[in-house]
């Protein structure tokens, strides 16, 4: 039997830093100098802003660039960053800087724009805690999934990759390493987190597990 999976969850306290950006130049400076936790808040944490209602919303930075500076092309590029590819904030920060600096080369005028409403830089304190839910095998894991909070979903599928520094979520890592079901793990790992709400993500994982059980049942019958 593999390792037991204990579900964790996390919560956040938002801090006001008092720092603001009115222009792309200001924004670039903030991104270059702010703590990792601020980058985390304005990108990864954005998933938490809408827990159940889907929005194309994975970046506060992109939203501000779109709505307050009306630089739609830059906003789209920032929004298109696939956060699941980043297991360190350092890498993500460099990518954000690269995109904005490249844009300066293409559209220098955009850097002259001053927004009426600033981008407010936040920081965040994360608190990670153990829950009382344990999975011992795929059946119990499947059974527990509908009962865990969206915060627990968020922690294991999105946030934890920054703690483990793996380009993989906790669920698929456990299914592969402890349950030795690499095919299912691969399918779960491949879910596009940018197009699902957290509830949608949960449903998709449940669906993949149910399909796996069905396939196993069919194989057994054959």
């Amino acid at each position: 039997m593999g390792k037991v999976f204990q579900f964790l969850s996390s919560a956040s306290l938002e801090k006001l830093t008092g720092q603001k950006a009115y222009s792309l130049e200001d924004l670039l400076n903030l991104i270059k100098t702010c703590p990792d936790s601020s980058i985390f808040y304005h990108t990864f944490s954005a998933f938490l802003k809408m827990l159940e209602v889907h929005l194309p919303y994975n970046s506060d930075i992109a939203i501000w660039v779109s709505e307050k500076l009306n630089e739609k092309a830059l906003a789209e590029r920032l929004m298109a960053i696939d956060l699941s590819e980043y297991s360190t904030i350092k890498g993500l920060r460099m990518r954000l800087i690269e995109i904005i600096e490249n844009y300066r080369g293409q559209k220098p005028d955009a850097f002259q724009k001053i927004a009426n409403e600033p981008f407010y830089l936040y920081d965040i304190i994360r608190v990670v805690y153990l829950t009382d839910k344990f999975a011992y095998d795929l059946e119990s894991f499947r059974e527990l999934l509908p009962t865990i909070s969206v915060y627990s979903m968020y922690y294991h599928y999105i946030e934890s990759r920054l703690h483990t520094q793996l380009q993989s979520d906790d669920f698929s890592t456990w299914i592969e390493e402890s349950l030795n079901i690499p095919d299912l793990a691969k399918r779960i790992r491949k879910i596009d987190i940018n197009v699902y709400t957290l509830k949608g993500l949960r449903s998709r994982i449940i669906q993949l597990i149910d399909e796996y059980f069905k396939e196993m049942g069919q194989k057994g019958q054959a």
Partner: protein
Amino acid sequence: MTAPTLFDYKEVVGPEIIGELMILASHVGSRSIKMVNSTAVGGGVAEMLHRIVPLLNDMGVQVKWDVIKADDEFFEITKTFHNALQGQEGYFEEDIFKSYLAYNEKNSHEIDFDEDLIVVHDPQPAALIHWNQDGKNRWVWRCHIDMSHPNPQLWGFLKPYVEQYDAAIFSSALFSPELAIPQYRFYPAIDPLDDKNRELDSSYVDRVLVKYGIPRDKPIVTQISRYDPWKDPVGVVQAFKLAKKYVDCRLLLVGDKAADDPEAEKILERVKAEAGDDPDIHILLFSPSVATEINAFQRASDIILQKSLREGFALTVSEALWKARPVIGGAVGGIPAQIIDGYTGLLVHSVEGASLGIRTLLTQPDLAKRLGENGYQRVKDEFLITKNLKRYLLLLLALDRPREHTIFLK
């Protein structure tokens, strides 16, 4: 009716959310909090404390609430402070500051501050900390007002007291001034189980509408707000009249009248003049309103407006969204935090925008329904009292570890 317990919120937010609150509370243990403010009744802060104090106690946190004692002279002073901190111009004589400090000092000796965390609400008791700096506990200043453009003279006087705190809490980055202490954001929150927000029988809603002579023969567009120029009730009537050229509907304006508020009378007269003799415009003035009736008006409405020109946080928006009503809000103050334009409601900047919003929502019921449902979810996620319980628990944990960005609880 007995006050709801934490258990009662399970059905509203889900057992898993309450379960996780209890886990966090178990890490906080029996630590204690003292809330201090300036009034036990009336006003949003007292209303919120009446709910949040017993619920934190339900979770095992030892919470006490003290109200400072003062006479009319002090409250006259702090009323002017309140307005000036929100940007009103004015000059304060030195005697005013001395008097303010004398009341604070007297209270600082009369109240015990033995708890682990002291949370002082708003400017009235803000200087209490000055006489209590033995370092045995943490002090946090919770500011509920918009301090983005405070009167410089007054802020110059108060800021050194505020900076004696370990941290400050504001409702939004928009409302916070520059400070040398850490600042946290706590969104204001509504209580889904209080009279203003709880589920109502449809027969009660019907009776309230009959009581006030509002027929339900056509869609109802409602704004519930004080008759105050910043809430733009005249603009609401103008937007309604523009919309009525295209869609048949009624307008319901509901507002409270504060005692001795001559400005409200003037605004009301202007609203009535703008409305003329249109039988589809219903103007109600309460002194004060009944919470369940306000709830009924919201539930009977097809669209709710909050067409403010300047705002604090405007929790009336969350109240309406909680009832899954589509809301059209002015893009000011805390309204954009609640309304994500096009997803959880519509943000507008003008009378014309509000009119177009009314026409759009009345002719596209699917869109109106979707905005209302999305808005309900947004409130459920961010603007319910249970979220603020969590914030207080996290604050207790965070203040213990001021240098950590991620806290792992074993």
